[in-house]
């Protein structure tokens, strides 16, 4: 068939190939397909909505809590002593990362649990374009949703804390960078979730590893001797991410750019593992 397409419109080839249209798989088409798949299941809408809700609601709650603490006259909670308008408004990233990461896992591991992966890989038997498309499509969607959520959370929270010592506007140095950093962090967490799902091929396994990496390992590290802690701690995915959206940095944290690089490294590692498994093992 493919040799016939080289000589189109001659009568002989028209006779020999009555099949008519000649289709072809391209990277762009796989991307469109994954885009269509993402939006045609309900869990996408629900989980993205939850992520957005967590991001905005917890930011507002944190800001309200700060404000009421300030006016109550009682000594400030330790958590709030070093709070900034940005840190309060991004309080929800902790929860939003779960929602967005879990959706990432569902997008890949969910195909294995439902059997959809067979249809997917029969259509695209070269396989890797599927992984790249899923990661790109979902990473972008998570990035856009999270960035939007971060800005909304900040606008709402900064209105609540206006007039307090920590009041900040969008124009303040580092604010826009922090909010974009938060969106980027959550987008990359989404990609990491996608990669973990493809690597482990199990929804439960993917979510467990994701939660462990983002929330449990940092706690375990604190059990290590303190001399080691300083070497490891800033490079954990969640801490590298936190340095991307923190306004203030000190010697124990990475700079935003370094944080981004470290997180990109983790993402690349997870994707490489996922690609290896996808190519090497039977679906």
């Amino acid at each position, binding site marked *: 068939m*493919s040799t016939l397409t080289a000589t189109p419109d001659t009568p002989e080839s028209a006779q020999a190939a009555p099949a008519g*249209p000649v289709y072809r798989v391209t990277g762009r088409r796989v991307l469109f*397909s994954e885009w269509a798949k993402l939006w045609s299941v309900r869990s996408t809408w629900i989980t993205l909505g939850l992520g957005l809700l967590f991001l905005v609601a917890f930011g507002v709650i944190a800001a309200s809590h700060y404000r009421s603490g300030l006016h109550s006259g009682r000594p400030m909670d330790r958590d709030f002593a070093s709070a900034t308008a940005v840190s309060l408004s991004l309080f929800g990233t902790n929860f939003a990362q779960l929602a967005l990461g879990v959706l990432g896992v569902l997008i890949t591991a969910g195909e294995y649990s439902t059997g959809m992966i067979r249809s997917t890989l*029969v*259509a695209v038997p070269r396989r890797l374009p599927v992984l790249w498309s899923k990661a790109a499509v979902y990473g972008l969607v998570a990035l856009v949703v999270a960035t939007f959520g971060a800005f909304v959370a900040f606008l709402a929270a900064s209105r609540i804390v206006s007039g307090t010592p920590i009041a900040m506007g969008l124009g303040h140095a580092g604010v826009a960078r922090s909010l974009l950093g938060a969106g980027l962090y959550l987008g990359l967490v989404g990609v990491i979730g996608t990669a973990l799902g493809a690597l482990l091929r199990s929804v439960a396994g993917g979510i467990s590893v994701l939660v462990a990496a983002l929330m449990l390992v940092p706690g375990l590290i604190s059990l290590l001797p303190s001399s080691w802690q300083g070497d490891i701690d800033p490079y954990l995915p969640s801490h590298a991410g936190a340095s991307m959206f923190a306004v203030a940095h000190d010697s124990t944290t990475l700079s935003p750019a370094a944080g981004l690089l470290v997180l990109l490294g983790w993402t690349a590692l997870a994707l490489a593992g996922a690609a290896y498994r996808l190519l090497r093992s039977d679906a």
Partner: protein
Amino acid sequence: MIDAQQLTKRYGQKTAVDDLDFTVKPGTVTGFLGPNGAGKSTTMRMIVGLDAPTSGSVTVNGRRYARHQAPLQEVGALLEAKSIHPGRSAGNHLRALALTHGIPRRRVDEVIELAGLGSVAKKRAGAFSLGMGQRLGIAAALLGDPQTVMLDEPVNGLDPEGVLWIRNLLTSLAAEGRTVFVSSHLMSEVALVADHLIIVGRGRLLADTTVRDLVREAGGDTVKVATQHPTRLRDVLSGPGVEVIGRVGSEELQVTGMTAREIGLKAAEHGIPLFELTAKAVSLEEAFMDLTRDAVEYHGSMTGADTSGSTA
């Protein structure tokens, strides 16, 4: 055209597919038969590249499946019943698959109609009955207007109307010159549509034959004759389309191509006494069972020792 060469798949100690060689040709329906666990599904998964062969190779239209520019246009496959996301509608499922190949929406609507899914295309596929799920799988298989159609146990879960629909679909696809490869563990089902048969058991090739040859080899349509004058009877009966087999010195002859009635009349005409005249009716099912008896993976306990069908 599907071409398997020394195709082998091992899972640890277990060999699922063992050194299979076969060719599936265009223009006919080829049945892929074997008891449960014979390696049919694994073979089909290797054909479309879901499983990698441990050794050997299988090509579709001259190339490995994954090497084709438009795989869905080469092979349309229905694998184990549900290869769908239950939360996605049938229409969206097909559209997402079509997008990977640039297959137009018009074609998606066509296969939805063809599979009789028009009224449920917007419903979540998870709510489908087994039969509807099969129809959706077949719609997906036909999406790329493929040269080769490969269906794994397509009639499973279908109602009689659906079974009939599949049969007509398969024969019409073959009549269009396509390669049609259908697996089943039921001989009776395959015999109705297939011309060619590839029979496997425990991953090995047991027979690569036609329906007619299988029946003949299994002794179907033969008549056993015992007579005092086997040599004379042989001469009398011989003619075009008639085959007479007998051992030297034995009174028994196996005759194919004539009915018992015709043989009896012929013998009487020539005054040859007959001692025995038995039509051996071997059904395809029995031929298949004979062939695969040793290869059946999971034996049920049998109440009678003899299952050769002699009591039937």
